[in-house]
């Protein structure tokens, strides 16, 4: 039996920031003893709230930050090794480029850093432009690009070296629904070609559709690592919102287990008691206009893991 090949091996990784004046030093523990393995050819999603330590973890993996303690092995080597970096693609959150270049020039530059030259470089740039659907705008200056176009060129530069491992920090930031779907499709295609994906994200839908495994980071600590199918098939309970006719709102009082009632239009109810509640509403002749889940299973799992409550409809709207 062969042992699985690791794309990333993180052992006991800690990062402490010291800020403030010497008389009043402030110590922030951004990562606490993170141990995590990412296998080759899998798509791994690192989930966490803002400030959970996800970006710090990525920066240490890529050598932008030195760990206070622990070690990282990437594709069997160290990030300082040029050969290792040649096999990695990285997309930062909201990538920014020199405004004076065209999209094509940027890809040519990043491709040449990967060792491409001449016709091989032109061919690779063409392929990547097609892949990220930027061929038409390739000769326009980056200064005229929208956020979504910048993100696409960003993923393009990450893919230009035909990476074995793609590391993305919030890859869906700033994308409209079409751009989001296109990016998701790119990830799914990359998975099919055997590229290892390490995605640092907030977007649960992206995780559900793209990732094989997830890790949940909270306050710098890894709380959970799980297979996505296991999470989706878990018996985790999610809340639902039952919309009722405004004339029947008065009949909702006294309905058991309701978590919150919005003015005149419905109530939040746990999925565990949903069938009984709907039966009860029917008996009371309450006209229900619809039932919708307030979160996905993945989101509920994430919130449960970090010990947070599922959002109410008003919180969801305001967020």
């Amino acid at each position, binding site marked *: 039996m062969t042992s699985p090949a690791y794309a990333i091996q993180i052992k006991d990784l800690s990062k402490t920031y010291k800020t403030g004046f010497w008389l009043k030093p402030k110590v922030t523990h951004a990562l606490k003893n993170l141990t995590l393995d990412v296998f080759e050819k899998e798509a791994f999603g690192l989930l966490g709230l803002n400030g959970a330590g996800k970006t710090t973890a990525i920066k240490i993996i890529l050598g932008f930050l030195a760990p206070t303690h622990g070690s990282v092995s990437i594709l069997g080597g160290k990030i300082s090794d040029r050969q290792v970096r040649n096999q990695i693609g*990285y997309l930062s959150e909201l990538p920014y*480029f020199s405004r004076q*270049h065209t999209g094509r020039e940027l890809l040519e530059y990043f491709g040449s850093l990967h060792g491409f030259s001449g016709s091989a470089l032109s061919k690779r740039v063409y392929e990547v432009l097609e892949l990220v659907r930027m061929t038409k705008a390739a000769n326009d200056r980056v200064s005229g690009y929208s956020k979504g176009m910048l993100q696409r060129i960003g993923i393009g530069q990450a893919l230009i070296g035909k990476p074995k491992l793609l590391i993305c920090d919030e890859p869906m930031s700033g994308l409209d629904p079409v751009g989001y779907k296109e990016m998701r499709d790119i990830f799914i295609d990359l998975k099919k070609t055997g590229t290892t994906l390490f995605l640092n994200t907030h977007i649960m839908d992206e995780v559900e559709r793209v990732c094989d495994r997830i890790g949940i980071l909270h306050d710098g600590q890894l709380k959970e690592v799980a297979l996505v199918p296991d999470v989706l098939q878990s018996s985790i309970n999610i809340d639902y919102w039952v919309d009722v006719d405004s004339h029947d709102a008065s009949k909702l009082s006294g309905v058991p287990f309701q978590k919150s009632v919005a003015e005149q239009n419905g109530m939040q109810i746990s999925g565990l008691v949903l069938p009984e509640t709907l039966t009860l509403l029917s008996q009371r002749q309450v006209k229900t206009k619809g039932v919708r889940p307030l979160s996905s299973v993945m989101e509920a799992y994430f919130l449960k893991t970090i010990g947070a409550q599922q959002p109410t409809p008003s919180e969801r709207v305001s967020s």
Partner: protein
Amino acid sequence: MKRIFHVTTFTFRELIRSKMLYIWLLSAIVFCLLAFLLSILSFGEVHKIFMDLGLVGMEWSGTLVLLLSLAVTYNTEFEQKSIYLQLAKPITRGEYLLGRVLGFFSVISLVVLGMGLLIAGLVAFVGGGQVSPMFFYSSVFLLIEMFVLTTLGLTFQMIGTSMVGVVLYSMFTIFLGHCVGQVEWLLNQNLAPAVKTVLRVVHFFLPNLEAFNLKDRIYDPNLIFGWEQWREVLLYGFTYSFVVFLIGWINLEKREFM
């Protein structure tokens, strides 16, 4: 080596297309107008005025383009974090820094030499004089000075934590670098030992930009100028730049990108 070349061409293209190069055009126009104005008032020797002002203009425009380029690229590279994407590629930080230095220097050389050609043209065709070989020597000395300043500026960029800081450090160093003669004069005065120690430290670290200043001595009849002087200036310029580059490189290697 190839990767250094790619960073250099990328940087060159970035700077040469930048709007800040209009500053160069503007300063060229201002210096030409000023030269014409002064030549009217000078009653002869027009070509000397063109050369004097031209050399000052070359130094000013080169320095101005350097400072503005440092400010603009600090914003792009460090504040907007485009350096992350480049350093994640198979390139060492030393290669990146050297590529940046050469890219900056190419643009500044173009600005300085462009201005020099303009002045030489004015001297020859408008001033009716001959362009002295000393004018060309001064231009080369100026280029060496610009190389030192470029290396210094980019090293400050690697060390600095804000755009304002980088520009201010560079400006003060340029200013003080031209005051090395005054520092040496002070060292020969009867000062308190503590003050002298501070001055010696300052004198040791400061770039002696007066070493590259040939423009003030073009018409000096006692000027001795030969291979010895070339060797001294070249050796000093490139040794100073190399040491400063090493400091910048070490800092970039150790720098943490928060």
